[in-house]
């Protein structure tokens, strides 16, 4: 148990230290050492607990609960202060509502509560801890180098790196808290902490856009927070003894008792996971420095949202409310993928692809059969790794060439070959066989066929899946075009950045090789313990996938063979005289430049249009869900 407490408390201590230390070199060392320790200890949890099943630990309640209440009130007052300072009335109203709910809960409900098994660990928590501990801390290490360059390139932004790293480690600490807490009141505290951390980090540059987007994120997540608080009050109402505040007891209490809190908490999960209609906060969050985006998209924040829905999917499974949640996820997957086609800003493409994949995870968890939960957890793992790699690649490119537009990445393979190859692997990891995301989508298709109303989701996957192929491959094509005029600009990238990028690239490939192991050691026991059934890929298929992966890895060797012996000619330009940088002789002796740009299908996949459709559709579904829920409560 001590390691669980360590993982929650140690990042907190590191965070406070980082807030105090002002010397760059000490801060850098501190970040690296803390990240290393967090990574090691989270790996330790794997070896200590992978075969112990779910373990529950009693932790002193009375004192801790008062501290929790005080921290929550402090957070609320802090938001209230900022809301008033920046004149954001909606945020103020929402935080007042939440404060009211908290006060009500504290006065009328908390008297008799004595949840005992406050901390726990099971295989799902281990997976989440590994994601947070390894990827989250790797991103923190990357941020050390990135933030230095960021402040050199953006002299207008006040250097608040102490706050930055404080928030990053606080974020990691609260994520650990979230996945290790069995007491919903604790989960709620950490939930609110992640909201506040993301709020501060998004608004880091304090530009008007950053502040607005930070408040957008805050407002949407506060809506979720209010639903969460509502779930707590409801639970206190139906069971004054407080046993149901323990997640495992609540889930085993059965659908009749648990459906209302499960749906309310899933709603909170939907806001946190930025599904439609709440997707705009995550897209807006990309104004933050890139490591923040990487953190929000891969190992923290949005993963908290899907984690909690996967946690509650046994309750949602088979209910009409669960179907509605799954449909919100499904439509989000389809529409967000389509929007990604129309975007040329790399970070926006990544953002919409995250939203889409979170939608898919929620679709799986909402239907919640054992196969789908398997697929959902696989998606969480693969997505976290590949997406963090992609964000960090884009961040590195941006630092170097000063643009995050995909069109400006033409010929990246010539200019920054190593980064381009890593980006290539990351993108392949997102949609190609035999890489991770595709494995999960494949299992999801198979699983949806047998699930109730599955045909809707099979269709969504068939169409949505091919849409993803389009926007990823045109990006891939852009970076691998061999432009004759490109100059190599890859020097001067700090070694710890390289280290993190290499680490994530190897992880992307490695998890594809060892996913059967991950499945049999962690996911299958978890699914088995929750559902009594489990699933896996057929042995034959695994063999073939591994063979394909090896084939993919040895194919590039053919480059050595092709390197010499071929006669190189310029591309066909209709017979016109053309210079190496593709300027060709037009008529009347005028020299014309040629440039090509990808298709973006603005007229079909325009952001505003599809966003409106998605918002309408998903808001409607939420309203139906809310009506159903009212019916159950009343």
């Amino acid at each position, binding site marked *: 148990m001590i390691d669980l407490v360590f993982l929650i408390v140690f990042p907190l201590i590191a965070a406070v230290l980082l807030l105090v230390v002002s010397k760059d070199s000490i801060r850098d060392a501190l970040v690296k050492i803390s990240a290393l320790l967090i990574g090691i200890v989270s790996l330790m949890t794997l070896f200590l607990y992978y075969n112990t099943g779910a373990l529950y630990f009693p932790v002193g309640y009375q004192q801790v609960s008062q501290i929790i209440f005080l921290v929550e009130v402090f957070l609320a007052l802090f938001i209230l202060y900022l809301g008033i300072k920046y004149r954001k009335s909606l945020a103020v109203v929402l935080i007042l509502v939440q404060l009211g709910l908290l006060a009500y809960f504290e006065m009328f409900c908390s008297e008799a509560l004595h949840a005992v098994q406050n901390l726990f660990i099971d295989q799902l928590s281990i997976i989440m801890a590994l994601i947070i501990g390894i990827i989250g801390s790797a991103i923190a290490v990357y941020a050390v180098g990135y933030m230095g360059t960021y402040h050199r390139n953006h002299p207008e932004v006040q250097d608040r790196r102490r706050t930055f790293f404080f928030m990053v480690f606080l974020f990691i600490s609260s994520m650990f808290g979230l996945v290790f807490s069995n007491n919903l009141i604790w989960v709620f505290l950490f939930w609110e902490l992640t909201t506040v951390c993301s709020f501060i980090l998004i608004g880091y540059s304090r530009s008007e856009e950053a502040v607005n987007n930070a408040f957008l994120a805050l407002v949407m997540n506060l809506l979720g927070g209010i639903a969460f608080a509502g779930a707590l009050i409801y639970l206190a109402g139906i069971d004054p003894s407080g046993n149901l505040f323990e997640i495992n007891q609540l889930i085993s209490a059965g659908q009749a008792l648990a459906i209302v809190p499960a749906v309310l908490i899933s709603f909170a999960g939907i806001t946190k996971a930025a599904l439609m209609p709440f997707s705009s906060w995550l897209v807006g969050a990309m104004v933050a420095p890139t490591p923040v985006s990487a953190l929000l998209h891969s190992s923290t924040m949005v993963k908290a949202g899907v984690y909690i829905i996967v946690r509650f999917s046994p309750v949602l499974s088979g209910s009409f409310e669960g179907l509605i949640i799954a449909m919100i996820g499904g439509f989000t997957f389809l529409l967000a993928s389509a929007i990604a086609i129309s975007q040329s800003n790399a970070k926006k493409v990544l953002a919409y692809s995250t939203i889409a994949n979170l939608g898919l995870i929620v679709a799986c968890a909402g239907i919640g059969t054992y196969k789908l939960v398997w697929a959902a957890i696989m998606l969480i793992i693969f997505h976290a790794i590949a997406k963090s790699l992609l964000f960090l690649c884009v961040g590195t490119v941006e630092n170097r060439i000063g643009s995050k537009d995909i069109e400006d990445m033409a010929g990246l393979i010539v200019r920054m070959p190593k980064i381009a190859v890593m980006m290539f692997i990351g993108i392949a990891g997102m949609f190609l066989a035999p890489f991770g995301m595709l494995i999960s989508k494949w299992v999801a298709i198979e699983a949806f066929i047998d699930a109730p109303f599955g045909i809707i989701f099979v269709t969504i996957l068939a169409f949505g899946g091919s849409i993803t192929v389009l926007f990823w491959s045109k990006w891939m094509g852009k970076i691998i075009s061999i432009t004759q005029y490109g100059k190599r600009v890859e020097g001067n990238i700090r070694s710890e950045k390289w280290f993190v990028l290499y680490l994530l690239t190897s992880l992307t490939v490695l998890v594809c090789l060892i996913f059967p192991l991950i499945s049999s050691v962690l996911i299958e026991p978890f699914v088995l313990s929750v559902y009594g059934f489990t699933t896996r890929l057929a042995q034959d298929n695994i063999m073939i996938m591994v063979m394909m992966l090896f084939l993919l890895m040895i194919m590039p060797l053919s480059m050595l063979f092709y390197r010499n012996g071929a*006669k190189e000619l310029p591309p066909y330009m209709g017979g016109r005289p053309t210079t190496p940088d593709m300027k060709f002789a037009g008529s009347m002796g005028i020299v014309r430049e040629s440039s090509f740009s990808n298709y973006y299908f603005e007229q079909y996949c325009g952001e505003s249009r599809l966003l409106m459709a998605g918002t309408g559709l998903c808001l409607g579904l939420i309203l139906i869900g809310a009506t159903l829920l009212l019916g159950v409560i009343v």
Partner: protein
Amino acid sequence: MISILNAVLFIILAPLIGGLIAGIDRKITARMQGRMGPPLLQPFYDVAKLFEKENVVVTPSQNYYVLSYIVFIAVSGALFFSGGDLLLVIFAFTLAHIFLVLGAYSTNSPYSFIGAERELIQIIAYEPMIILSAVGMYMVTKSFFVSDIMNSPIPVIVYLPGIFIGFLMVLTIKLRKSPFDLSTSHHAHQEIVKGVTTEFSGSGLGKIEIAHWYENVFLLGFIYLFFAFNPVIALAAIIVTYLIEIFIDNTFSRVKWQYTIKSAWIVAGTLGIVNLAVLYYLSGVMG
């Protein structure tokens, strides 16, 4: 469950069969246009000649992508004929095509570039329908494995008429037949020169041609699955289907990409989905 022998047979025989089909295709097409047409073995002569040509490239890396293309086309076809998982076959197939697209992108040539974009549009036009076909076969035979579908006594076509029509529709795209030969074409008339294959010559182009033969044999094998309960009917169905495709090729002029994707998706979204929904309902009713 996986038959290695079939895989090896496919890798050896498919180019021969594919080349022969291409020869017959050219012969029939010529007759439809009132010409004599080339000898039956002309496709083989053409490809053999390509391999004798000088190796001319825009960038050496394009050869790598084309090699990957033909390797993965062969792998996915071999996986299909050895009785593997249909969805995995489809995914491997997509992977192979992405390599062709990347090869075109890598040359940084305007005609290849447009060809690559159009090839991607074609991929997303046909992929949903092919996945829905696999799903339909699973719903009828309760297995994704080609070996099980092959040995199933159920007349799959009876349950999947809508899916089959949808599949025929995307087959035209896949066979690179007019009206959907957007990204590259067998014919000389193409406003984007040769599209994806513009910058390929010599052995590179030869590999693309052989890969296309592999692909065609695989696609015709897919038709077989609809009729697997009776091999004679299945063979007849394949022949009739191919003749229809040649006929369509010669009677329709090329359409725009917008029309291609719209029509393919509308067919997949109506015929395909309705077919699956009926099956779904029936399986619910009959337990």
